[in-house]
């Protein structure tokens, strides 16, 4: 094992160095823009190194003992470099780099102190995400898994003076923790059954059929729970839309391209283990497809541009999970990568719009295409990619997912995903038509974003195009197994969605209100997020607050009561006993005399 892992380690270490520098050297952090430049420089070199790793198609594993024990170390840390992590490294560093550059302009109005804090968190996040990607075993993965969760919490609550942001941060943290409890329990159970955290060892055992552990399905289900929380799968998806309270670049990086895909990445990474438990895989596929459909319906009634994108992210994550569940994890992973590109693009473009208009509400935008044509073009590119229009990147990966699910004979999930594809095109073009075309509603004069923001947008748009063209030219092998009627079907679905949105929001041939009335139950439910948020709030109030109240009662009346009783007893006893001390010398002499007498008598009796 003397394979050179220096380069991957460099990719991992640079953001950490930047984080340490910013965290420890206060004056540097408080310069704001200076801190940003440090962080950007580190991530830029890191990106270069990641590209080099990817280009050379590195495959290496190197681990160091971490928790020593008699029979070899219990746990190890290290790096596992293979095509999967190579691709992730490039995606994470690329999107992080672009987002950090974009943030310089987007957060230009921030004071230097908070800006420095922002870049400190960003560096920590990139480091944690890379550590998660490179993890060679479950334990290291879990540690970094929690670290990205922490960074997500810190960055959602970046504007912590706003109560909504602080609440959203706490909500995101707690809901993902619900899944993480399952994750850690699963990891430990798996370890106690197999004696190792290492992926490679586990895969070897899986191949030799040595993993016939009783209750493996339960273990893998628990591990999957971690992915449910992190990748916002039903029923733990409620935190992601609220996470949009954070700055838009954060949403682009963490809540679209990287952290939320950690769950999908984990399932893809441990695919050989999940392959042993087909029942869990089927569950993953069904939950994924259901999540995709549910989130898509909610996106259709949402008026907040970032929330539409957030529901769309939940929906696409459902796609990826469904692919992983159908045994087509390469397709899911491909969708992860392309989605990372175009969803980051969409979020950043939405950020440019919000920056210009000063509102998130699409119905208070309108006619923006004339005011900011460049942003409009890249947003449309992203929309086309998300809707799955060839030859953009999204088309091929989405088709691969659909093909994979069809191949696995999962008709139910396939139908849900197909319907989702239609809805996806519909809600995305709804945003495009309402916000970018139509009559202008916005007050003031929206203007094009500065170059620091447009640059990353164009780069992502071009990449989305290039990746798609690359697939169009060299592809074919990636979705060879899909039936021939699939590409026309998915394009047709996208077209139907497009036409619907066009007819409703551009031509106004169909009144959206009449549709809403016709579909009242769905409209009602989707607008109320299917009552899930209310359910969680109710559960929280009922269980957590009830429990807290019980504990408070016990503390106030039982614990404090015992103490109060003890002090009262001591006081009473002291009060009674003090009368013994009369203050008269003669009484004491009585005591001494009778004491001596008693001692004499006692000594006499005792001697016998």
């Amino acid at each position, binding site marked *: 094992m003397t394979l050179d892992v220096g380069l991957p380690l460099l990719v991992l270490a640079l953001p950490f160095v930047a984080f340490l520098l910013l965290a420890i050297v206060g004056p540097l952090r408080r310069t704001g823009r200076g801190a940003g430049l440090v962080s950007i420089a580190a991530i830029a070199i890191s990106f270069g190194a990641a590209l080099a790793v990817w280009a050379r198609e590195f495959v290496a594993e190197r681990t160091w003992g971490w928790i020593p024990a008699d029979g070899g170390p219990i746990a190890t840390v290290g790096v596992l470099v293979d095509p999967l992590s190579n691709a992730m490294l490039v995606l994470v560093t690329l999107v992080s780099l672009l987002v950090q550059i974009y943030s310089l302009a987007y957060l230009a109005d921030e004071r230097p102190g908070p800006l420095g804090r922002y870049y400190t968190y960003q560096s920590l996040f990139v480091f944690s995400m890379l550590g998660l990607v490179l993890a060679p075993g479950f334990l290291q993965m879990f540690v970094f898994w929690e670290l990205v969760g922490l960074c997500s919490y810190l960055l959602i609550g970046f504007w912590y003076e706003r109560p909504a942001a602080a609440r959203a941060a706490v909500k995101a943290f707690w809901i993902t923790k619900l899944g993480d409890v399952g994750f850690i329990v699963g990891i430990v159970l798996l370890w106690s059954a197999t004696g190792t955290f290492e992926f490679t060892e586990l895969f070897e055992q899986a191949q030799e059929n040595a993993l016939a552990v009783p209750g493996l399905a339960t273990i893998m289900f628990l591990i999957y729970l971690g992915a449910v929380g992190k990748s916002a799968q039903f029923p733990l998806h409620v935190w992601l839309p609220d996470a949009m309270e954070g700055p838009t670049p954060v949403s682009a990086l963490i809540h679209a391209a990287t952290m939320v895909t950690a769950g999908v990445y984990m399932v893809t990474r441990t695919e050989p283990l999940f392959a042993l438990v087909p029942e869990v895989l089927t569950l993953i596929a069904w939950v994924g497809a259901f999540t995709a459909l549910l989130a898509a319906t909610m996106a259709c009634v949402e008026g907040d541009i970032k929330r539409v994108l957030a529901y769309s992210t939940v929906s696409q994550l459902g796609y990826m999970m469904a692919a992983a569940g159908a045994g087509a994890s390469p397709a899911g992973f491909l969708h992860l990568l392309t989605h990372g590109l175009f969803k980051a693009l969409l979020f950043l473009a939405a950020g440019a719009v919000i920056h210009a208009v000063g509102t998130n509400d699409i119905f208070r935008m309108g006619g923006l295409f004339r005011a900011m044509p460049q942003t409009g073009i890249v947003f449309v590119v992203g929309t086309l990619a998300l809707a799955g229009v060839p030859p953009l990147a999204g088309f091929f990966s989405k088709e691969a997912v659909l093909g994979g699910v069809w191949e696995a004979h999962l008709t139910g999930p396939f139908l849900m995903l197909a319907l989702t594809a239609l809805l996806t095109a519909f809600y995305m073009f709804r945003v495009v038509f309402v916000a970018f075309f139509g009559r202008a509603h916005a007050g003031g004069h929206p203007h094009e974003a500065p170059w620091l923001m447009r640059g990353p947008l164009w780069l992502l748009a071009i990449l989305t195009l290039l990746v798609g063209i690359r697939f169009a030219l060299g592809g074919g092998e990636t979705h060879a197994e899909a039936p021939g009627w699939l590409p026309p079907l998915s394009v047709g679905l996208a077209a139907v969605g497009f036409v619907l949105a066009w007819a409703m929001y551009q031509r106004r041939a169909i009144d959206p209100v009449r549709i809403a009335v016709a579909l009242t139950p769905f409209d009602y439910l989707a607008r109320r997020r299917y009552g899930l948020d209310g359910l969680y709030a109710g559960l929280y109030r009922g269980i957590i607050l009830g429990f807290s109240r019980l504990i408070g009662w016990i503390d106030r009346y039982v614990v404090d009561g015992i103490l109060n009783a003890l002090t009262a007893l001591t006081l009473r006893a002291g009060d009674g006993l003090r009368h013994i001390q009369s*203050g008269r*010398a*003669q009484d004491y002499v009585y005591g001494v005399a009778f004491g001596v007498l008693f001692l004499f008598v006692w000594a006499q009796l005792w001697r016998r």
Partner: protein
Amino acid sequence: MIGLSAYLVLAALVFSIGLFGVLTRRNAVGILLGIELMLNAVNINLVAFARFNGDLTGLIFTLFTISITVAEVAVGLAIVIAIFRVRRTVEADRLDLLRG
């Protein structure tokens, strides 16, 4: 010839009378007198043992005790007088400033 036990009985009697005085007298001067009796009972014991054991140490000790007793009475009386000046009484029952 009077035996040792007679002296010891005498000493015990004197000690008991002294203790009785200390415990029962109301007057601080009376208590001091009781203490004197108890100390002299000890002296009788010492002298008696010295005489019967033929050991002079007890006699020498007695001399010390007598002189210390004198000092003690001097100090005790001085305290009683000082108390009288402040409290206008030397009645032991009322000197209970340390009562709990």
